[in-house]
C-alpha cells in the first residue's frame, strides 16, 4: 500500500491541479511511468512527447495510456507473441481476403494487401471531401462494406469491426498520430472539444476532470491516464476482447451516472476527432493491452 503523506493535504483547486501533474512518477510500486516502449525489441514507440499546440494552454506533455499500466501489462504489449490483441489481427487478415456482399468483393479486391493501409490509422478521423463529413476509421470501413461490397455494415462496437481496425492500425504502428483539425474539420473538432469539457451526469464530471486534471492519480484502484486513443482498439484483460473507442466513451460517460450518447452518434464522432487530436505526436499502438 502507498504510505500516507505526513503533511496536511492542501485543498485549493490549483494545488490539486499541480498535484495531478506532479503525481507522475510518484507511484513506482504500481506502474513504471518512466519506462520506454520498444516494440518487439526493435521499434521505438513514442509514449510521451510535447503536447500539440492546440493543448498548450492546458498540458505540457502528452502520455500514452501504456505509461500508466502496471509492469506486467506493459510487458505484454511490448511483444507481439505476448499481446493477446494480435489473435484478432490474424482473424481480420482472413476477413480482409474474404468476399462478402452482393458485389462478391473483399477488401483485398480493391486494396491489395493490408500493408496498403500504412499511415491510415495515424490520420483518422479525417475530413472526407466527397462525402462532406468527418470520417472515423469505422465509418470508412462500413462505407466500403456497404457501398463497394454491397455487404451489411458491421456493428460499430462489435468484434468484427474492432478486429479490422486492429489489422489496419498495425500497419501504422510506430507512426505518429497526425490528425488534422483545421479546414472543414474545424467545426466538428470544436463540437468535440465542447463535449470533452462538459460535466455530465449526476456526478457532474467531464472527460477533462479525470483525464486532464487527474491523470497519474488513482481513483480507487484505477490509475488515471490521459484517456488517449492512440492505442485503440485495446485488448482489455478485464473483458478479454478488443475494445473500441466508441464503447470506451460510452462507458466513461455512463460512469458519471449519465445517459451516454450512442456509439456512432454525431456527438461521439466529434468527440473521437477531438480526443484523437489530443494524441497528435504519440505513436499509433493499436492493438494495445490495458487492464
Amino acid at each position, binding site marked *: 500500500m502507498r504510505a*500516507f503523506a505526513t503533511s496536511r493535504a492542501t485543498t485549493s483547486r490549483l494545488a*490539486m491541479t499541480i498535484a495531478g501533474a506532479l503525481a507522475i512518477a510518484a507511484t513506482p510500486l504500481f506502474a513504471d511511468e518512466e519506462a520506454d516502449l520498444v516494440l518487439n525489441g526493435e521499434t521505438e514507440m513514442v509514449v510521451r512527447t510535447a503536447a500539440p499546440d492546440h493543448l498548450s494552454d492546458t498540458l505540457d506533455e502528452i502520455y500514452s495510456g501504456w505509461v500508466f499500466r502496471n509492469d506486467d501489462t506493459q510487458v505484454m504489449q511490448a511483444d507481439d507473441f505476448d499481446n493477446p490483441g494480435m489473435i484478432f489481427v490474424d482473424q481480420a487478415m482472413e476477413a480482409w481476403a474474404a468476399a462478402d456482399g452482393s458485389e462478391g468483393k473483399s477488401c483485398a479486391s480493391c486494396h491489395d494487401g493490408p500493408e496498403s493501409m500504412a499511415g491510415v490509422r495515424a490520420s483518422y478521423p479525417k475530413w472526407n471531401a466527397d462525402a462532406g463529413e468527418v470520417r472515423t476509421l469505422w465509418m470508412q470501413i462500413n462505407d466500403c462494406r456497404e457501398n463497394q461490397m454491397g455487404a451489411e455494415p458491421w456493428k460499430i462496437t462489435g468484434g468484427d469491426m474492432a478486429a479490422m481496425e486492429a489489422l489496419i492500425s498495425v500497419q501504422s504502428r510506430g507512426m505518429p498520430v497526425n490528425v488534422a483539425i483545421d479546414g472543414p474539420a474545424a467545426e466538428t473538432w470544436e463540437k468535440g472539444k465542447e463535449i470533452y469539457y462538459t460535466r455530465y451526469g449526476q456526478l457532474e464530471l467531464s472527460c477533462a476532470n479525470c483525464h486532464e486534471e487527474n491523470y497519474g492519480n488513482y481513483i480507487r484502484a484505477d490509475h488515471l491516464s490521459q484517456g488517449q486513443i492512440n492505442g485503440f482498439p485495446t485488448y482489455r484483460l478485464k473483458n478479454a476482447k478488443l475494445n473500441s473507442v466508441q464503447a470506451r466513451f460510452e462507458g466513461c460517460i455512463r460512469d458519471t451516472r449519465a445517459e451516454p450518447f450512442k456509439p456512432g452518434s454525431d456527438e461521439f464522432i466529434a468527440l473521437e476527432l477531438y480526443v484523437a487530436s489530443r494524441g497528435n505526436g504519440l505513436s499509433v499502438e493499436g492493438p494495445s493491452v490495458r487492464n
Partner: protein
Amino acid sequence: MRHFTRTLAVLALTASPILTSPVLTGPAWAEEVAPADVVFDEYGAVAKSLTGVPGDPAKGAEVMASKKIGNCVACHAVAQLSDTPFHGEVGPELSWTGEARSEAELRGILVNSKKTFEGTVMPAYYKTTGFIRPGEGFTKKPAQEPLPPLLSAQQIEDTIAFLMTLKDQ
C-alpha cells in the same frame, strides 16, 4: 416526495419538545430538510442539521468506505479507514478533518461541494436537479429529475459525525 417531507416537517414542528430529547433516534419524526431547501452561507457552509438527529459515526465510516454508498475513498485517502483497500488520490487526505473543519463546513461540502470549492470535481451528494444528461444509476438509461440524492439526509449527518472523529493521532 417533496410534499411528503414537508408534511413531516410540519408534524415535527408541533412535536418539537420531543425532538430535542436525545432518546429519540428514529428519523421518522425528525425535521428533514429537502435538498432544494438547504440554506448555505456565503462560504458554502450549512449550519442547520439536515435531520435534527445526531449522526452515527460508525455508519458514517461505512458510507465513506463502501463502493455501494458514498465511495468517498475512491478519491480520498483516510488513514482511519485503512482496512478498506485502494484509497484514491484525486481529493485531499481526510485524516485530520475533525481538527480542521466544523460540522457546518462539512455539511456544506457534502451537500454541494461546489459552493465551497468552485469547480471542484467532488460530486454533490444532496442535490437532485440541474444535471446534464442525468442517467439512472449506471444503466445508461435517461433519468427524470429530481433524482434521488446520492446520499440520504441521515447518511450525510452520519458521515459528518465520522469526519469529526478524524484527528491526528
